[in-house]
């Protein structure tokens, strides 16, 4: 497919406009706090929109659409039960503590709650994850570019069969563009460009849906026509959110409830720097909470925009060799000149907003937690700002370098989930127990974290290396179960090791553990008068 010049013009105007808008924020960046936390002045609506558009990226458009093509609306569990409960718990319980503590990152909070060893391990594993996910995003973007543009734009420059070279070209273009305004403007540029990008992304996705549902091959049209079409083709379970516990897909209901909703999702929305960082930049505690909840409201619409196109593609193109090409195929076949450019701009919006978020998150962890926190490098504010920008630039390069490692799993989305399932279970166990049980000790946390990571990594390797009958889990990419087992392992070790080691004085945990926050001021005072309850 070759884009019409009008589409190319729309995309070019959008990209240049966004770049200019993002670069405007560089004027307001004077300190490290301005760069990494937007000067702690973000309103709730910008936080919510930014969380959503950062969370859903090129990976979702390409891979979640692909997942719904393969497995049906069960893929929507990721954005429904895999989001709202966790977001409610995050916004009303955890985020207020992070915000009040004035930290820059989740590892920094972990360091205060446990100790510097926990902070070190957390910083390193989250940095590795963030860099790897950057590679996966660049690859997803390149795949979409390739699917849309193919070989024609490169006629005479790159041989037609040199797909790898074209993919790498797209990776480099994407990295260069997204890196530019992120390096210059920091979190404020990221958040406010995200607001623009959310609107473009939603608009583009709605156009694809609206036109897709009018397709004559869908019979009656609309959702009922789509359902009839799929059921008559034998895809009976594609309209069920619940798949049996022994399904071979990645969405057995047991895994969705116990692995995704209770472990992975809370870990993601409470322990993931990419999500939490915006709330730390809120102008007040209420805005931090409201912004997170507002993201939950917007997230409800994501499956409608991303999962339904996968079902549309299945009805219209049942023989696709690679399900990850479903969304690109829809754009290619359904949209007229002009709208293709707008939708493509929406896709780029989703991509860039995620990439810039991961860049700032990884840079803040490396700068705050590793260089100045663990290595105790002392720098003045100006040098810290320079360091943050330099780190962001270096991360762009590292992200590109990890692209070749992202192709070993069946789908990009599953690849990301595999990494998360190793990291998130232990992280969530430490956060949850650390927040609600003040007896949890630093040494207990450190030992438990290492044990949980070992369990998650071991299970992942076992699952990948073993023959079909000897695997610990029978479903494809059982990331939810791995997260659940590593969570339980970490929790068990944490409780046992904490009971065997000396607890920290309560005074050192003030403001870091959940205590008596259900009570108003009068009740709190009464509690303190009766038994010396500490302030939350």
């Amino acid at each position, binding site marked *: 497919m070759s884009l019409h010049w009008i589409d190319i013009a729309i995309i070019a105007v959008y990209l240049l406009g966004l770049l200019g808008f993002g670069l405007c924020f560089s004027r307001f960046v004077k300190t490290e706090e301005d760069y990494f936390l937007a000067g702690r002045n973000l309103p709730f609506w910008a936080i919510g929109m930014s969380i959503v558009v950062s969370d859903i990226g090129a990976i979702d458009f390409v891979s979640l659409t692909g997942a719904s093509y393969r497995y049906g*609306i069960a893929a929507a569990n990721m954005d*429904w*039960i895999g989001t*709202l*409960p966790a977001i*409610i*718990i995050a*916004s*009303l319980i955890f985020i*207020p503590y992070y915000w009040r503590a004035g930290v820059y990152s989740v590892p920094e909070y972990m360091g205060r709650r446990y100790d510097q060893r926990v902070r070190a391990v957390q910083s390193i594993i989250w940095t590795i994850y963030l860099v790897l996910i950057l590679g996966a995003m660049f690859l997803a973007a390149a795949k979409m570019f390739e699917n849309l543009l193919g070989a024609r734009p490169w006629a005479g420059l790159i041989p037609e069969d040199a797909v790898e070279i074209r993919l790498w070209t797209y990776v480099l273009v994407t990295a260069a563009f997204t890196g530019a305004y992120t390096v210059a403007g920091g979190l404020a540029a990221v958040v406010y460009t995200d607001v623009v990008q959310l609107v473009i992304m939603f608009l583009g996705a709605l156009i694809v849906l609206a036109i897709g549902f009018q397709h004559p091959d869908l019979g009656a049209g609309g959702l009922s026509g789509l359902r009839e079409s799929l059921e008559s083709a034998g895809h009976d379970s594609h*309209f*069920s*959110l*619940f798949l*049996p*516990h022994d399904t071979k897909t990645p969405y057995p*209901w*047991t895994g969705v*409830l116990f692995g995704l*909703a209770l472990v992975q999702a809370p870990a993601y929305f409470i322990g993931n720097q990419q999500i939490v960082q915006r709330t730390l930049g809120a102008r*007040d*505690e*209420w*805005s*931090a*909470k*409201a912004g997170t*909840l*507002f993201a*939950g*409201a917007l997230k*409800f619409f994501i499956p409608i925009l991303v999962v339904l196109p996968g079902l549309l593609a299945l009805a219209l193109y049942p023989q696709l060799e690679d399900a990850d090409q479903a969304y690109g195929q829809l754009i290619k076949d359904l949209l007229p000149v002009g709208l293709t450019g707008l939708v493509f701009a929406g896709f780029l919006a989703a991509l860039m907003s995620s990439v810039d978020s991961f860049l700032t998150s990884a840079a803040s962890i490396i700068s705050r937690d590793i260089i100045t926190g663990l290595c105790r490098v002392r720098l003045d504010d100006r040098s810290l700002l320079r360091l943050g920008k330099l780190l962001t630039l270096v991360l762009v390069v590292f992200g590109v370098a990890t692209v070749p490692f992202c192709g070993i799993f069946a789908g990009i989305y599953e690849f990301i989930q595999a990494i998360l399932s190793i990291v998130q279970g232990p992280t969530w166990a430490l956060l949850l127990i650390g927040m609600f049980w003040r007896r949890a000790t630093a040494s207990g946390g450190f030992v438990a974290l290492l044990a949980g990571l070992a369990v998650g990594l071991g299970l992942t390797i076992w699952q990948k290396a073993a023959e079909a009958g000897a695997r610990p889990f029978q479903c494809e990419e059982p990331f939810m179960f791995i997260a659940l087992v590593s969570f339980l392992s970490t929790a068990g070790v944490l409780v046992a090791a904490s009971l065997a080691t000396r607890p920290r004085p309560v005074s050192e945990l003030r403001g870091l553990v959940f205590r008596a*926050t*259900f*009570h*108003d*001021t009068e009740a709190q005072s009464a509690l303190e008068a009766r038994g010396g309850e500490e302030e939350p």
Partner: protein
Amino acid sequence: MNEVSIARCLFVGFFLLLAAGVMILPRAYILRGAPDTALWRDLRWWALLLLAVHVYVYWRF
């Protein structure tokens, strides 16, 4: 009752449990940091509305 029906009940029950948890949070805690105490700033109602929508979707599909 087949497996899917049990799963549906568990999922909906999970949402309802969460709704109950939200409602026991005191208003003062929810409004901490808010510039005023207008009804729309009470985040418990935001949460309940979102949970109600999800209960409907999971019961329907």
